[in-house]
């Protein structure tokens, strides 16, 4: 089955990974700006990164028949550095008109510091001031996830201009998904071998909660991650007997609905699954 992966850090992956993703059914991916595993440290480094996301990566993806879109931001791991934020955020608007830029992301919190919250709110404001671009939000890892998600949702609730349908709160897990869903935001489930959600748990959440406004992604990056993890999710759904029309809703229709809020997003026509 063909699928869309809304969260891939292809800058950290090899060209072989593009090929394997294409072979596993990936037709479209979106790449949010993120932490490289080290601090870039300067606005110039971010400028080069934004160039790569808007020029080099879409060309690399296209060689394998994959559409590449991107999101720009100062990532949460470096967002505590307010001087860096002051230098990087003014760079972003000059890239927003590029053809593969969908919105602002991934923004959010890491250790849930006062500075991180300030940088997060500035980037939410940046998105809203640009016709309320879609926003992709990173929620913190492991023991910080619940706390960070609560603080993010409180911050969004205090922003009267926010339109929940244009916001994806990513890396949701069992204890945060209901909090996100009840406020009308999109929720992303991240399929990781260790630190986030397994394909089995993702399917559990679909079963227990709802497929409404839920996306699944590999969030593949420089750490332990599987670029074709969405294919494993599809297999797990089928293993339990879920119909292809439900699977397609989650891995194709839902991302098209969320990403399609950007006029730049043009989804290819999917090949129908063999059983439909």
């Amino acid at each position, binding site marked *: 089955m063909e699928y869309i992966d809304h969260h891939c850090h292809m800058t950290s992956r090899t060209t072989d990974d593009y090929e394997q993703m294409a072979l596993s059914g990936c037709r479209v991916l979106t790449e949010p700006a993120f932490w490289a595993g080290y601090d870039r440290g300067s606005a110039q480094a971010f400028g080069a990164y934004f160039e790569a996301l808007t020029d080099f990566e879409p060309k690399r993806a296209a060689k394998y028949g994959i559409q590449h879109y991107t999101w720009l931001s100062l990532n949460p791991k470096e967002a*505590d550095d307010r001087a860096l934020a002051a230098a990087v955020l003014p760079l972003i608007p000059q890239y927003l008109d590029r053809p593969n830029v969908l919105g602002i992301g991934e923004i959010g919190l890491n250790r849930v510091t006062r500075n991180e919250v300030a940088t997060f709110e500035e980037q939410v404001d940046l998105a809203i001031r640009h016709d309320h671009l879609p926003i992709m939000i990173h929620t913190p890892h492991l023991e910080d996830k619940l*706390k960070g998600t609560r603080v993010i949702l409180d911050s969004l609730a205090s922003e009267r201009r926010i339109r929940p349908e244009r916001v994806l709160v990513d890396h949701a897990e*069992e*204890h945060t998904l209901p909090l996100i869903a009840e406020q009308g935001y999109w929720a992303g489930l991240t399929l990781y071998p260790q630190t986030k959600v397994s394909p089995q*748990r993702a399917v559990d959440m679909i*079963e227990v909660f709802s497929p409404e406004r839920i996306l699944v992604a590999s969030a593949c990056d420089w750490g332990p991650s599987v670029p074709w993890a969405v294919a494993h999710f599809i297999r797990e759904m089928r293993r*339990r007997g*879920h119909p292809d029309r439900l699977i397609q809703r989650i891995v194709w229709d839902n991302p098209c609905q969320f990403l399609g809020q950007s006029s730049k997003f043009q989804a290819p026509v999917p090949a129908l699954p063999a059983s439909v």
Partner: protein
Amino acid sequence: MDHTGTCPLSQRQLVEEYFIEHRTKILDIAAFLDRFDRASQHDAEDDFRMLAFRKALDALLHQSGASRMQAVQMLLSDPRTDLLEALDRKSAFGAYKTDDEP
């Protein structure tokens, strides 16, 4: 909320399909705890991560229905919402450490 019936497979089908892989996982946990006891130095018996780990194992035995996952997630989560005034580190530990825990 009652989630009965949300998984399309029967219990028998779940056992047939998933028992072996989860047998492997529980043996991995048993081996890890044995390895922990066999360690060359017993210097982390009260480590906050291991305390949370043992609480989580207890929750598996004493919760029921669909509440095990929620219980374990909450045991491994920082329950506070106050902001840190300064960045202390980049990474998470996997369990919540109170100020008085080693």
